[in-house]
């Protein structure tokens, strides 16, 4: 029963990882940019959430309504003003620039919020759970996060396949120059993709803050987990990202069941195994 519990908790944790990973996957899928500041932006979102929650006395869920749209705007601006310029120089430059952003963000947060760790007051959500059997219970909060991840990925998939703007994003992902001669304003489309990615990062950061404590340096590990989820699932495939997050979460939970220190390492080992055996991921694809 303890094992079953580990699997269930792992799946739910996987939702959080998938939420982290889908923004990374989208940015890479559309503009071939690996945003090394991804995790730091998530932590920044958690700090902003903390400010909103304590400042306005609203619950965690409500804070998403303020932080996610704000992050969408931030994403659009970061793309247009910073990443786009480096993209036009070379793909390598985007790595350097986002790495630089990561360093700047971490230090700015250290300045602004100190090195102390914080966590988001999630109120009744943190405590509540459905107790299915004496050993198996599902926390309200982790269930909400998992549901949010599924809803985000399903809507993103629908948006990309059905919406006019979504189709432009896919066309641009396939061939930006050809999309441009077909009338698509590629820079704007990249900006929109970044806005969506950043809104999902904000959700992931808030969920993370509700799950566990965070400090200005917490982003790096988040980035690694997000990377692993994307690679396990298959680069550019959103369903793959969800699956990758779940596989990573379950591996970590099962590893932790073996030995409490083994969880994160088990996740890394599964990641390495997938890289070795199926380097293109479990569900390889493109943003389709």
């Amino acid at each position, binding site marked *: 029963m303890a094992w079953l519990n580990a699997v269930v908790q792992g799946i739910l944790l996987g939702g959080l990882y998938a939420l982290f990973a889908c923004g990374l996957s989208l940015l890479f899928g559309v503009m071939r940019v690996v945003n090394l500041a991804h995790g730091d932006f998530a932590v920044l979102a958690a700090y902003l959430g903390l400010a909103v929650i304590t400042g306005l006395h609203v619950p965690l869920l409500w804070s998403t309504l303020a932080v996610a749209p704000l992050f969408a705007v931030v994403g659009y601006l970061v793309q247009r003003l910073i990443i786009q310029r480096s993209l036009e120089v070379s793909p390598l430059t985007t790595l350097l620039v986002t790495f630089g952003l990561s360093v700047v963000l971490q230090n700015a947060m250290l300045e602004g919020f100190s090195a102390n760790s914080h966590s988001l007051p999630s109120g009744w959500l943190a405590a509540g759970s459905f107790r299915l059997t004496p050993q198996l219970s599902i926390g309200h909060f982790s269930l909400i996060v998992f549901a949010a991840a599924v809803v985000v990925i399903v809507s993103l998939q629908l948006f990309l396949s059905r919406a006019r703007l979504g189709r432009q994003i896919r066309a641009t*992902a396939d061939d930006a120059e*050809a999309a441009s*001669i077909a009338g698509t304003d590629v820079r704007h489309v990249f900006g929109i993709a970044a806005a969506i990615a950043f809104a999902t990062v904000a959700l992931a950061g808030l969920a993370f803050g509700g799950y566990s404590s965070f400090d200005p340096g917490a982003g790096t590990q988040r980035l690694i987990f997000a990377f692993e989820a994307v690679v396990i699932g298959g680069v550019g495939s959103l369903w793959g990202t969800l699956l990758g997050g779940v596989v990573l979460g379950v591996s970590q939970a099962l590893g932790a069941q073996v030995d409490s220190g083994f969880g994160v390492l088990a996740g890394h080992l599964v990641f390495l195994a997938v890289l070795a055996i199926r380097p293109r991921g479990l569900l390889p694809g493109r943003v389709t």
Partner: protein
Amino acid sequence: MTPAAPLLELDRVSKRFGRVVVAESLSLAVQAGDAVGMVGPNGAGKSSLFSVISGDLSPNTGEVLLDGRAVTRLDASARCRLGIGRTYQVPRSFGHMTVFENVLVAAHRGAGLAAGAARELTVAVLDETGLRPDANRPALRLGLLQRKRLELARALATRPRLLMLDEVAAGLTDPEVRQLVGVIQAVRERGVAVIWVEHVVRALVGVVDRLICLAGGRFISDGTPEEVLASPAVREVFLGTDSGGLPRAGFAEHGEQGGRPPSDGDSSS
């Protein structure tokens, strides 16, 4: 038939890649409704010139004008919306999208149409280019002929006033070329100006009334197809670089002798 400014004007456009000059102070005027063919050996700068006009490449010096207005600093999507459409020599379809979606994107953004109108235009263009049976296939499953047609369809769906065709006939069989010529002829009759780069000169002559030969980044001849193909400078360029791939004067009467240089299919710039 047109107001003072030509549809497209190049004003002393130069483009270099390091030491390689692909356009050397080129000036050109194309009026609305004109049909211009462009020939030249591989590497003459034909595709690069298209890219300078479409906005994929910026010229080092000179201006590109549309309706008398400089568009040199506009990006390709803005130029597309102003009426410049092009195809690529090597088809660049959106591989992971269906044929229908490929064309629909162009109809939405390129032609600036709302959802319903964009769908209607897409269906019309697919019918015109013979792609309707393939509408729901992903573009990466298409064969060469269909991908060439899709290039043309996507360009047409942007509702261009100037359509630039980059070797759309290369690699096609004669019946396929004839069918394509029919489509382009019909587009031309709607008043769309065409600039058509093609090695398959026999495909050109049915459509164009002006031929330009580009070599080494310069226009070495410009006139009616008969004049240009008879010009000693043009004959020398073709003999000099392609050893015998010379488009013959009078090919129209004699049919299938038209010049396809031996290095056909290879990138022209």
